[in-house]
């Protein structure tokens, strides 16, 4: 077990190292080709003085000479970056605030969005998938399948924007007129996030974010259910005289969930991409919005800082899961 842990750790470190290098190389290339990102600090309004530029470049660590040579991998700069990362320094945003602080401040909100997102996936995806499987080849099955294809084809931003008007302004307006401003429903149906109600105002965007992934989860759930419905152990369960509900829940659903849960895990990375747009448009103070703003301001260093953090968290998280599996299931260790 000890050896396995060490091996798995070494491997995680290696992956993190490579991923960070990839990110570093992309940034270096971006700076080498596009020039000093320090300008971004001043936005489109102000022409910065040399002194101002210098201070900013220094803080961004973009004053390294290798950043002037296109294609240079900037290894020494990378080592510096790694050193800073090791010290918890992931760079600073336009306001000179540490990216890590920003991310720490924003992570809870992103987690909220994700919680709603996952809940939606679980409830809608699994529920609809199950329904489609149980009523396969019937009208509701076709309807659900058609729905997944269409919802999977609508770009997230359109969906979020439509929701902002339909739910936030129109439905929300009606609710506020009839139930008052402080009614829970009125708060849920607000067109943007409000730090005073960090959970309630994250429900709509969380659902919107989940829409695209729900399609895939619904479909997988349906396939997985169908496979299990036809399986021998379900036949056994029926032969045992169990009720239809029990056969479905205890002997089909649970088995079908395994690949679905794996897919949910895999989809979270993609959802973070969607969260960039959703959080940006819903004004949710999350990690996604941070990236959204940075992208709009051409502020690549922040994007890289955030993505680096995300990558490290993701890899450490998967390491943790793997180790947990190894503890729980002795067979895993003998791969």
């Amino acid at each position, binding site marked *: 077990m000890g050896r396995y842990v060490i091996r798995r750790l070494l491997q995680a470190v290696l992956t993190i190292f490579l991923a960070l290098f990839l990110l570093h190389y992309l940034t270096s290339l971006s700076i080498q080709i596009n020039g000093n990102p320090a300008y971004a600090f001043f936005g489109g309004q102000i022409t910065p003085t040399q002194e101002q530029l210098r201070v900013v470049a220094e803080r961004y660590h973009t004053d390294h000479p290798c950043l002037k040579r296109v294609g240079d991998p900037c290894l020494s700069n990378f080592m510096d970056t790694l050193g800073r990362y090791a010290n918890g320094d992931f760079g600073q945003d336009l306001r000179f605030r540490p990216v890590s602080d920003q991310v720490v401040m924003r992570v809870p909100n992103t987690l909220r969005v994700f919680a709603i997102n996952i809940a939606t996936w679980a409830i809608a995806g699994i529920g609809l998938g199950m329904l489609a499987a149980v009523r396969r080849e019937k009208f509701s099955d076709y309807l659900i399948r058609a729905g997944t294809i269409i919802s999977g084809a609508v770009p997230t931003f359109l969906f979020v924007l439509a929701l902002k008007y339909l739910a936030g302004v129109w439905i929300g307006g009606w609710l506020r007129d009839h139930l008052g401003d402080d009614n829970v429903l009125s708060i849920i149906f607000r067109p943007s996030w409000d730090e005073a109600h960090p959970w309630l105002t994250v429900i709509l965007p969380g659902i919107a974010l989940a829409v695209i992934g729900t399609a895939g989860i619904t479909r997988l759930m349906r396939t997985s259910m169908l496979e299990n*419905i036809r399986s*021998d152990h379900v*036949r*056994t369960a*029926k*032969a045992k*005289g169990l009720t239809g509900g*029990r056969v479905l829940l*205890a002997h089909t659903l649970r*088995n079908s969930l395994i690949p679905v849960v794996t897919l949910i895990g895999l989809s979270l990375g993609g959802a973070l991409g969607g969260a960039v747009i959703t959080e940006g448009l819903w004004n949710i103070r999350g990690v996604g919005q941070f990236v959204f703003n940075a992208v709009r301001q051409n502020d690549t260093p922040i994007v890289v800082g955030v993505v680096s953090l995300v990558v490290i968290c993701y890899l450490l998280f998967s390491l943790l899961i793997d180790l947990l599996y190894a503890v729980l299931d002795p067979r895993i260790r003998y791969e």
Partner: protein
Amino acid sequence: MATKVQTRSNILDGLDTSRPLLEVRDLQVEFHTRDGVAKAVNGANFSVERGETLAIVGESGCGKSVTSQAIMGILETPPAKVAGGQVFFHGVDLLTLPKDTRRRTRANHVAMVFQDALSALNPVWTIGYQLGELFRKHRGMSKAEAKKKSLELLDLVKIPAAKQRIDEYPHQFSGGMRQRVMIAMALALDPDLLIADEPTTALDVTVQAQIMRLLAEIQAERQMGLILITHDLGVVADVADKISVMYAGRIVEQAGVLDIFARPAHPYTQALLRSIPRVDGKGRKLEVIEGLPPVLTRIPPGCAFAPRCHYAKPACRERVPSLEVVENGRRAACLYTAEVLAND
């Protein structure tokens, strides 16, 4: 025996113990597939008495499993559809029962053991859970009671160290042990009839012998009816009282075990027996049945075996022969049984 039935009369009304334990009459099962309607079971007739072992034999795909599942009422509908016939359990037609009554008959009166125990057991629940579930859901027992009963069952099927193994998962058991668990599960609610669908096909011969012995012991002890589905005629010769031979969805011959092996009355039975290699060296040269069984969506008119039959005459292709008594209780579906019997 009558008392036993009465204890569970809350499940089935109108049981008549004077009628056979199970009587299948003209059972028809169809599958609606893209290529048309497949008649998987096309008029099956047989009966089993208490304490009796009926073996159903036949080539792969001839409809043995479908028949057993139709009796159990666990066919997937659609694509399957029971198109006709009756399944009497002590005189009560199971096919006409309300859904819920039908469900409660399963395991309580008629239980089943499947071929591949690994896939027939749910991989995500422990053995103990899957056994205990029966007691909890059908008998309303508490978890602790159910566990106690489950342990008794595991002991009954001779699983060593049952106390430890009850909390293990199916994949942690060997093939033979898993099949014992399946049997335990089938026996849990004291069924009157046990249907075993190729219970040993996936097992090694030494393990097969263990399992068959176990089944025989239990059957003798409880006086259950047993329907044994298999294509291994060796096993049949060892345990069966009666045999039904199936071909392309029909029972083509039905008789006591000694009669069939001694003098088959149907050409198919005859050919089947001649094609089996024997470990005791008899019948050195293997005979083969030329050709293949028909595709069930396109069964040729007349006798389905006719295209492969040595005895076939033009009449065979015109009329479907019905299962008729040949001599003292044995029945065969062939127009030329006399010829067949003569040729043995």
